[in-house]
């Protein structure tokens, strides 16, 4: 059956890109599938709304944004060498569907329940779903091709690189969108300029040398958004509590605890029987928040407390944690917490930068797995960005590790076990860093 052009172009009003244009019936119908509509109920930034109250935007907005940027890139590529026009719809479909497998608060879910959204993405695209039905109009192998592009195993690397590389439609959308919705002043760069200077090559899109400064701006926003938004310590505190709720629910289920509000929608994650695709698609953030709300009334004191903390934003405090603390104080703190009746498995948590699914620009060395950003020079040679840009060189490969220790500070100021609590506070107060949940 293939694709048809819509009789009239459809547009979505978008605060980041102004308009999102849809002319292909295939894309229009994909947006209308129930699997894609589900993304309206999954926030793009997980728990960040507890720090930046505007950050309520969803994977639905973002997916449309990635589609729109990809559409604009392709428009610029049409007629240039290396670009294969027949790949247009494949590229657009992959851009639109690249996050389709994300679940609610997916990073924490994936850690605790050992699942991954990439696997679900493949299942949604190639399984018994409305998405696959729509994609199959383009041919029986089309859904698999879309899944391959998203999984980065499609042979045409240029197509893959538009959606997944160090300067791709995905990052260009989320940086701008996250900046807009959080209200921070970082994250802005001249995307129009970048699109104008992007050129298709065999394996990736490269940047015309004259556009280097626009790319510098993009790299800087990536760097600033990382520290100011993605790794914000208050957001991380909420993420820690969220993970601990899930960990507790799992432990209680496995121990045969009798829930007042049984975690029916989560059971597939605990039991031997694998979670079905339709069960997975039932889960979204509204469902999860309902459980958290109800579990505030559970008898288990840990689950009840953690849910109350999450729902009412009574987050953990934190201190910075360094090497000497790992060496000398970690096990002592654990002992002291146990002694005063606070379970350190749930209430003494180290969060590291490697726990975060965001990264910085890497210039790429011999053994690096990720292609760096390349500039195309006037003589047609390719040069890695940081070799030409002092700004990029200055922020590439620098220290970017960080560890914070999260704990319920108010419990250390209650009566009882004063000696142990004093010792805990003494250890924690010796650390540099904040003990307030600041914005």
């Amino acid at each position: 059956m293939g694709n048809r052009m819509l009789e009239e172009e459809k547009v979505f009003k978008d605060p980041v890109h102004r308009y999102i244009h849809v002319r292909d019936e295939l894309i229009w119908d994909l947006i209308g599938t129930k699997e894609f509509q589900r993304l309206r109920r999954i926030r793009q930034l997980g728990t960040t709304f507890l720090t930046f109250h505007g950050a309520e935007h969803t994977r639905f907005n973002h997916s449309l944004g990635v589609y729109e940027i990809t559409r604009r890139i392709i428009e610029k590529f049409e007629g240039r060498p290396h670009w294969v026009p027949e790949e247009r719809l494949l590229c657009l479909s992959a851009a639109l569907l690249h996050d389709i497998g994300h679940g609610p608060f997916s990073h924490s879910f994936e850690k605790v329940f050992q699942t991954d959204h990439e696997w679900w993405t493949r299942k949604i695209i190639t399984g018994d779903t409305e998405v696959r039905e729509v994609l199959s109009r383009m041919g029986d192998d089309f859904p698999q091709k879309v899944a391959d592009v998203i999984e980065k195993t499609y042979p045409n690397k240029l197509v893959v690189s538009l959606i997944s590389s160090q300067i791709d439609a995905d990052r260009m959308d989320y940086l701008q969108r996250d900046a807009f919705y959080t209200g921070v002043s970082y994250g802005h760069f001249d995307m129009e300029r970048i699109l104008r200077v992007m050129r298709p090559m065999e394996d990736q899109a490269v940047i015309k040398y004259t556009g280097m400064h626009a790319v510098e701006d993009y790299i800087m926003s990536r760097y600033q958004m990382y520290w100011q938004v993605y790794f914000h310590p208050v957001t991380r505190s909420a993420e820690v509590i969220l993970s601990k709720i899930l960990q507790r629910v799992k432990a209680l289920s496995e121990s045969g605890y009798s829930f007042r509000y049984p975690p029916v929608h989560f059971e597939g994650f605990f039991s031997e029987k694998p979670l079905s695709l339709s069960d997975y698609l039932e889960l979204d953030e509204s469902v999860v928040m309902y459980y958290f709300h109800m579990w505030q009334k559970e008898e288990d004191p840990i689950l009840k407390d953690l849910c109350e903390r999450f729902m009412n934003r009574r987050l953990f405090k934190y201190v910075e944690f360094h090497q000497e603390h790992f060496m000398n104080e970690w096990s002592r703190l654990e002992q002291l917490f146990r002694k005063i009746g606070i379970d350190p498995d749930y209430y003494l948590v180290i969060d590291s930068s490697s726990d975060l699914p965001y990264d910085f620009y890497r210039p790429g060395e011999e053994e690096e797995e990720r292609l760096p950003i390349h500039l195309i020079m006037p003589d047609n040679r390719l040069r890695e960005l940081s070799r030409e840009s002092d700004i990029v060189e200055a922020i590439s490969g620098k220290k970017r590790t960080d560890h914070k220790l999260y704990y319920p500070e108010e419990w250390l100021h209650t009566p009882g076990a004063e000696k142990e609590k004093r010792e805990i506070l003494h250890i924690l107060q010796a650390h540099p860093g904040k003990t307030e949940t600041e914005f």
Partner: protein
Amino acid sequence: MLPEHAKIMALLQEAGEIVGRKKLQKIVYIGKKMKLPFQEKYTYHIYGPYSEELTLRMEELCSLGFVKEVKEQKAGYAQYCYHLTENGARFLDQFPLSWPAEYARPLVTALNERSAKFLELVSTMLYFEELPKEEVKEKVFTLKKSQNFTETDLEEAWDFIDSLRMIPFPVK
């Protein structure tokens, strides 16, 4: 967080030294496929399965002084070697880690004896192992064209995978 760092340290302790970032990436991936309890998330990249999380974790371990990274200049490119430091060993010693050492030792030794290129092939094949063998071969020849792997290489890799699976896994 800490247990995941400790597992990488335990791996380095078993291995002694791992030469090359690519090799380290592939050892952890294959180890994970062979049921070592790693939790790093992998996706497909230039040289096959790659984990950004592992890269960051290694940077953290180096910055904490638990792992030493030595950069060696090879003909035209840099290579990185990793080993556990004394502080790292001391920390690991006091950390209550659940790690199947008896199982890990022969597995890690077998992996570390192989070249990064061979492990790249093995990990790529394992990445696609849900597919029929013929399709795995097709994937390897398409995605790894520049590496010029031969049918014999693939057979050797399958045999190697089988031999890893023969190592008895401890029953609880």
